[in-house]
C-alpha cells in the first residue's frame, strides 16, 4: 500500500528525482536512482533498507552534508545548500564533543547562534530535565553510559529548536534494553515536542513502533520500494496508550512487522538475482 500524501500543510522535506552516482556516469555506482519522497510537517518517517540502499545518503542530503548528482532536495521549500541548525542531526556515534560538559554540549547550538548565557542556561536546564540528565550537567561524555550520551545528543538537537530532526540509526550503538527505553522516550518527547523526523534504522520493530510512515528502500540501484502507512493503524489500535513491550506483543504490531520484514526480504532477493 502506498499511502497518498496526508499533508494538510506543505511538505517539510521534499526529495525530487534525487540521484546520486559515484564515479563516472556509465560505470559508476548508483547509490540513489531518481528518488521521490515528501515528508509532511511533524510527520515521523522511518527509512529501512539493506546496507548500500542509500538511506543514509538521503538523510545526509537533507542535512546538507551530502549533495545529489541530480534532482532537488528541498526543506520548507528551500533548496538545501549546506548544514544548518534548522535541520538537526542525531548520529549513531553520538558525536558529542569529549572536551565539553553535558551542559556545554547541549548548549553549543545556542552558543553558535549567539544566544545570551541566561537563555542558554534556561534552555539547557529544560532539556536536561526532559532527558533525565539532572546531576550530570558537569559530567564529560566519556563518564556517561551509551544511552545517556545519546540522550545528550538528542537534547542537543532539540535545543536548537530545529524544524526537522534527522536521525541516523540513533539507537544502533545501544544495547537492546537501553534501546527500548530510548524508543519509548523518543515517542514521549515527540508528543510533547512534535517535530518533522526522518529516522534511519536497521530495526524493523523500531520503525514500526516509532514511525507514521515507513519507507522501505532497495539497493542496486538505491530506490524506494514501498511506503507503508503505520499512523492509521497506530491510532485505530491505540498503541500510544500502551507501554512499548505490550505494543510489541499486539497482533496488529506483529502483523505490520512481518509485512515490512517480507518486503525487505524480497528486496534483498531481487538484488541478489
Amino acid at each position: 500500500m502506498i499511502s497518498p500524501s496526508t499533508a494538510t500543510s506543505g511538505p517539510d522535506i521534499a526529495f525530487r528525482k534525487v540521484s546520486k552516482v559515484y564515479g563516472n556516469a556509465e560505470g559508476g555506482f548508483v547509490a540513489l536512482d531518481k528518488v521521490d519522497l515528501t515528508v509532511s510537517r511533524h510527520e515521523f518517517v522511518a527509512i529501512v533498507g539493506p546496507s548500500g540502499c542509500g538511506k543514509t545518503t538521503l538523510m545526509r542530503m537533507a542535512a546538507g552534508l551530502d549533495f545529489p548528482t541530480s534532482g532537488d532536495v528541498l526543506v520548507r521549500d528551500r533548496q538545501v545548500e549546506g548544514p544548518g541548525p534548522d535541520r538537526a542531526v542525531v548520529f549513531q556515534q553520538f558525536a558529542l564533543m569529549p572536551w565539553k560538559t553535558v551542559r556545554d554540549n547541549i548548549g553549543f547550538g545556542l552558543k553558535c547562534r549567539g544566544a545570551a548565557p541566561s537563555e542558554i542556561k534556561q534552555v539547557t536546564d529544560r532539556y536536561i530535565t526532559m532527558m533525565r540528565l539532572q546531576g550530570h550537567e558537569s559530567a564529560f561524555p566519556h563518564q556517561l553510559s551509551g544511552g545517556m550520551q545519546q540522550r545528550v545528543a538528542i537534547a542537543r538537537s532539540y535545543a536548537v529548536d530545529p524544524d526537522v530532526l534527522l536521525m541516523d540509526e540513533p539507537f544502533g550503538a545501544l544495547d537492546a534494553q537501553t534501546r527500548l527505553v530510548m524508543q519509548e522516550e523518543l515517542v514521549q518527547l515527540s508528543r510533547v515536542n512534535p517535530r518533522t523526523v526522518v529516522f534511519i534504522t536497521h530495526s524493523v520493530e523500531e520503525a514500526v513502533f516509532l514511525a507514521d510512515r515507513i519507507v522501505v528502500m532497495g539497493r542496486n540501484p538505491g530506490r524506494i520500494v514501498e511506503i507503508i502507512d503505520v499512523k492509521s493503524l497506530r491510532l485505530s489500535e491505540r498503541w500510544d496508550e500502551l507501554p512499548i513491550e505490550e505494543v510489541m506483543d499486539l497482533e496488529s504490531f506483529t502483523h505490520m512487522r512481518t509485512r515490512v520484514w517480507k518486503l525487505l526480504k524480497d528486496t534483498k532477493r531481487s538484488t541478489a538475482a
Partner: protein
Amino acid sequence: MTTLSNAANATAPKAARRMRRRLPGIGESLVLSLAGFAILFGGWWLLARSGLVPEQVLPGPDAVLAEILHLMRTPFAGSTLQMHLLSSIGRYLMGLALAVAVGLPLGLLMGWSRRVERAISPVFEALRFIAPIAWLPFATLWFGTGIGGPILIIFSGAFPPCVINAYYGAKLIPTPILEASRTLGASSLRMLTDVLAPGALPSIIAGVRIAAGIGWQSLVGAELIVVSSGVGYLMMQGQTNLSTAVVMAGMAAIGVTGFAIDVLLRLIESRIQKGALA
C-alpha cells in the same frame, strides 16, 4: 620518604631490599643523569687542567663559571649577561607567538578543509625545507639589523611544527563531531575556536613544544649575525675578542635557558593533559 616510614614496621633487611628494588625507578635515572654531567664536567676540567690545551682555547668549567658571574655584574658588548638573555627571550617570544598565532589556525583549517589543504600544502611543503638559517641573508636584506630579521628567522623555525601538528590534530577529530558542529550552526570561526582547537589540543601542545625548541635554536643563529644585543651577539663579540670563556658562557646560558623552556612546556603539557582527562 614513604619507604622510610613504611620501613618502621618492617624489619631492617626487608626495608633495605625494598630500597634497593626501588632504585631502578626515578632514583636510578637521576643518578645516571648526574653521572653524565659529572663525566662531562670532570673530563672537561681534567682536559683544561692537563695543560694539553692552552687555557685561551679551552678554559675549564671553573673559569667559565667565573666568567658567567663576571658577565652578570660587568657589562660586555653593551650590557650584562642577563640583559642580553632578556633581549634574546623578548625576540624569541615575539617570533614564537607569531608562529603560533599564524601556524595553528592555518594547520587546523588545513586539517578540516580539503580545499584549504590543497591550496596551502604544496607551498608549505616547498618552503619548510628552507632551514631557518638559510633565511638569514634574506632577513638581513629586508630588515638590516632591526627586530624583523630575528623574528623572521625564529618564525621560519617555529612555524612548520605548529602547522603540521595542528593539521594532524584536526585530522584526528572524528568526522561526525565536525559534521554535528556544522549542523548545529557553527561558523568557521566557531569551528576553529570551539571544535578544531580543543579537539586537536594534545597534538597542538606537542607541536608548540617542538616549535619552542626549534625557535630557540634558530634565534641564536639569527643573533650571531643580524643584531646588536642578545646572547648570540655576546658570543660573537667574545669571539672577536678571542675570549673563549665569554663564548662558552653564552653557550651555557643558551643551554640552560632552552632546557628551562622545555621543562616549563612539559609541565604545562602534563597539566593540560591531566585536565583533559579529568
